[in-house]
């Protein structure tokens, strides 16, 4: 399933259109950045409520095509700028982590 299809099926707000046709291989949900650094895999979507610039830095380093911010969280300005530079798709869900994970699991697991 592509990033674009996930945006449509989960009704996500898209703040930076990038990697829309990239095939998503899974997802990783964590607010601990070293956990993501150590355990997320490239091609996965990252679900988090962290909104600072290091999120886009880590997504870029780990080849994570898209980040879903939960509970309507908005990215810090410099996180969004960095995501634009590094071509990371930034998405916002009004749902909490549990609901986002559940919906995504039903779609791609």
């Amino acid at each position, binding site marked *: 399933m592509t990033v674009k299809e996930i945006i449509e099926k989960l009704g996500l707000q898209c703040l930076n259109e990038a990697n829309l046709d990239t095939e998503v291989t899974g997802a990783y949900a964590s607010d*601990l*950045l*070293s956990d993501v*650094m150590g355990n997320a895999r*490239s091609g996965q979507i990252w679900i988090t409520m962290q909104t*600072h610039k290091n999120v886009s830095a880590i997504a870029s380093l780990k080849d994570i095509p898209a980040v879903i911010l939960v509970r309507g969280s908005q990215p810090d300005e410099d996180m969004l700028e960095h995501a634009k530079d590094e071509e990371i798709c930034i998405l916002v869900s009004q749902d909490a982590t549990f609901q986002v994970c559940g919906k995504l699991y039903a779609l791609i697991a």
Partner: protein
Amino acid sequence: MHYTFQIERGNFTDAGQASSSVKRTLKQLGVAPANIKRTVVALFEAEINAVAHAYGGTIDVDIDGEKIVMVVADEGPGIPNLDLAMQEGWSTASPKVREMGYGAGMGLPNIKKNTDDLKIETEVGVGTTVTMTVYLV
């Protein structure tokens, strides 16, 4: 090839620039993706450790056909108990650093897992030098 980067105390905004730059270089050199991944995870963690704990420092990266050697040297408080610091879950990070999602005590274990060779020299009240090697062949 040799690259040097500066580390500024508490500057999380620019943290990751060294890792990002090294990643681009390794890609251009055609280094295997698995080795690029290991290298950037280790370097990013070391960079964050220095930003979070030290008063400033430098990152030196040397790349040749056989290996990548990364030296992160800081002036800082040093690590009083290295055995504890290497334990997953142990952290002395400040509440501010923890709020950002760091301080889970996974940094040094992540570095160890992702490098072939890890040397940590530390002196309390002086600083810490972390030398990480990733072999390419």
